[in-house]
């Protein structure tokens, strides 16, 4: 009996003590797959700063009116109608019209009229030139962008960029919001 007990104990002691690795490897692989799937490479973006009239909705400040260069944007030609898909812009077809799908205007086919002060132009370099003339006369000059009906984000960003190129740092948006 004692012999039997001793041999059983020896057997237990001789048994290898192993850590069960399989679940850990499973979880590790799952984590790896998760990170690989959610991976989105960081794309460095830029930002253009702009301001709103500071005292909107407050009415407590008695700010002196500051003369600003007004840059008005009007659409002369809205451009070709396109439909946004996952693969980019595609032509807006009769089928899209029938289905009442949303459309956007192709950026390259648009014609915008810029009114800087009293000068009207359809060319962005002309806008920069006019804005530079204003800031040369008064380095503290501020600019206001006044986008009208059917103007899209690209049109405004191009003007904002042009104003920054001309040396303006304080650019606000006009409060005449489209209804």
């Amino acid at each position, binding site marked *: 009996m004692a012999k039997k007990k001793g041999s059983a104990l020896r057997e237990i002691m001789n048994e290898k003590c192993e850590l069960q*690795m399989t679940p*850990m*490897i499973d979880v*590790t*692989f799952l*984590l*790896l797959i998760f*990170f*690989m799937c959610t*991976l*989105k*490479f*960081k*794309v*460095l*973006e*830029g*930002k*253009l*700063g*702009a*301001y*709103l*009239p*500071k*005292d*909107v*909705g*407050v009415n*407590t*400040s008695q*700010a002196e009116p500051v003369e600003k260069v007004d840059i008005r944007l009007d659409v002369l030609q809205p451009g070709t109608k*396109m439909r*946004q898909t996952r693969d*980019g*812009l595609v032509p807006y077809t009769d089928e899209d019209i029938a289905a009442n799908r*949303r459309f*956007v*205007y*192709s*950026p390259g086919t648009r014609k915008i009229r810029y009114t800087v002060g009293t000068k009207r132009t359809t060319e962005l370099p002309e806008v920069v030139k006019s804005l530079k003339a204003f800031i040369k006369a008064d380095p503290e000059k501020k600019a206001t962008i006044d*986008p009208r*009906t*059917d*103007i*899209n*984000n*690209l*049109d*405004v*960003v*191009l003007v*904002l*960029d042009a104003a*920054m*190129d001309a040396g303006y740092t304080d650019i606000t*948006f006009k*409060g005449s*919001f*489209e209804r």
Partner: protein
Amino acid sequence: MNLAKHDSETDMEMDMTPMIDVVFLLIIFFMIITDMTQQDLEDVDLPVAEHAQPDKPDPKEWRPVINVPHDGTMIIKKKTYFDPDVNLGPEKWNDLDKWLKFAADNMEKAPIAPGSNVNVPDEPVLIRADQVTPFKYVQYIMERCGQDGTQIWKLQLAVSTPDTNEGGE
């Protein structure tokens, strides 16, 4: 010739340690390069601007970001706060107004004018609008930002820089 005999009792075990090491290294690599701040950013085609400041947000700091894809929906942290097809009627801005109020409350404040005791939020809201998004949707956000009680007056329009575009964005 004495060839090694296969002993059926010998355990044939693969050494897993190098594999686990490599897998852990891969996980650490992916954890480091995965930037959670990018989760706020929807897939929109940003307009290109040459004179933009590079956008390098501090991952530790919260910042308000509103995405406006081409259809005019306003998406914040994957949640739609305004959809021009769905949100109609006088209460259509309620969700966005609440969020903007929350954002304004969490911003640092500064006097509206030197010497004034009226404080307004002094941090910007980043608007990420697609290049073909009608600007009226951005203007709507501006209008909501300027509301009494919110008074956010600093804005940033997200753009892509020419370098980013060359990289085959």
